[in-house]
Every structure is written in C-alpha cells, then in structure tokens.
C-alpha cells in the first residue's frame, strides 16, 4: 500500500480502542499513516530508534552523496 499522508499524534490523546488495536503505549509520539488505495489508517509508535528507524522501515535510504 502507498503512503499518502502522515500526521503526528500523542498516544495519551488517542482512544483506548485505537491504542489496543494498534498495540500502542499509553504515552509518546505516534505517527498516523494514511494509506491508499483503501484509505486505511495505521498508527505507529515511535520507539528508541526514532524517525530514522521509522523511515528505514519504509525502505533503505538510497545511495547518494549529500554535500553543500
């Protein structure tokens, strides 16, 4: 499924149903993914590896040099 949009949320502001369904912690940063073609929502807790690990879960970074 293709990632169409991403939002940030706090686990503490989400309903218990959502926390249970997506196995989320009671506190912390959550990424809400909107996925096509079914317009599904996925809730993902950001863990110790942070944003980098989340992104790597979407595929390796491409090989390219970044210079100023």
């Amino acid at each position, binding site marked *: 499924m*293709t*990632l*169409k*949009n*991403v*939002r*940030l*949320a*706090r686990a503490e502001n989400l309903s218990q149903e959502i926390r249970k369904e997506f196995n989320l912690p009671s506190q912390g*940063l*959550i990424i809400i993914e909107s996925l096509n073609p079914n317009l599904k929502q996925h809730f993902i807790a*950001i863990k110790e590896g*942070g*944003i*980098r690990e*989340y*992104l790597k879960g*979407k*595929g*390796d*970074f*491409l*090989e*390219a040099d*970044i*210079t*100023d």
Partner: protein
Amino acid sequence: MITIIPSLEIMKAVVDNNISSPSSQLRRIAFDTATNLMSLGDIQILIEGILYDKLKHKLNDDHKTFFTSLYRIDNSAKDVTDYDITKAIKWIANSESNSRRVVIISENIKDYESICNDSIKCFSPPQFLGLVEKAQHYYKVKMFSTLEDSLIAVFFFD
C-alpha cells in the same frame, strides 16, 4: 510559536546509511526531539528547499511523503544566484522571524551568529537537547503553564 530549522549535517545524520558516530547520534536525537515537540505545541520544523533537494536523492517515495506531510519545505531561496544552504537558511530564518520565533540547530553555530537576535537563536545539538530538557523540567514543576512558554523562556531569555 516556534519554528525549528535543522541544518544540513543534522538532516544528513537522519538519512545517511553509514553514520554511527556519537555526534551523529546526538544529531538524530536532536531531530527526533524537535519532531516530538511538534506534537506538544505550536512548534514547526522547516526544512530549507535547497537542503531538501539534496536530501531527496536519498529518499524513496514513502520517505518523501513523510517529509512533505510533516515538515514545511521552504523554497523561498531556491534558484537565487550564489545562495548555498547556509545563506538560504539565514535568509529564511530572518524572514520567518517576522512571524514566529526561530531556532536553528547546527554543528556550526558560528555560521549563523550574525543573524542571531531576540527572535533567532542557533544551538548545537547538545545545547538544544539540554535546553529542551530544562524547559520540560520547568513545565513539569509548573513554572510555566505551557511547554511552549517554557521553551521560549529557555531558548530566548535564559
């Protein structure tokens, strides 16, 4: 209202495949911390457009969706003759500071000294992390009613 602008080396640490030094780890934590702050108040991350164009070469489509959904990509200084990323960040920080307070995170804080004032500050990753921790503590002990006020106090008036 705070806008956080990460510099090139901060973003490189987030998307490079083989960076594992302790200082890179701090840069990544600084970026994660800034993203976390976005969920706690009126705090935005702005990625300068020339920088994002370079970053894009490392990203697949899902990565790009992530960056363009969550962060403000500012192309104001793109295509301006003789502007590199540092000059572009300085120009955007000045412009942005007319409406919001601005924090630049960079290892090379001297590059931005000339534009720092009451509304623009530049911190290294360890400085930024220390100040955020301080602000969180002040908010926790109720010195400030919101985390954002606490952040403004430690970033701009400490």
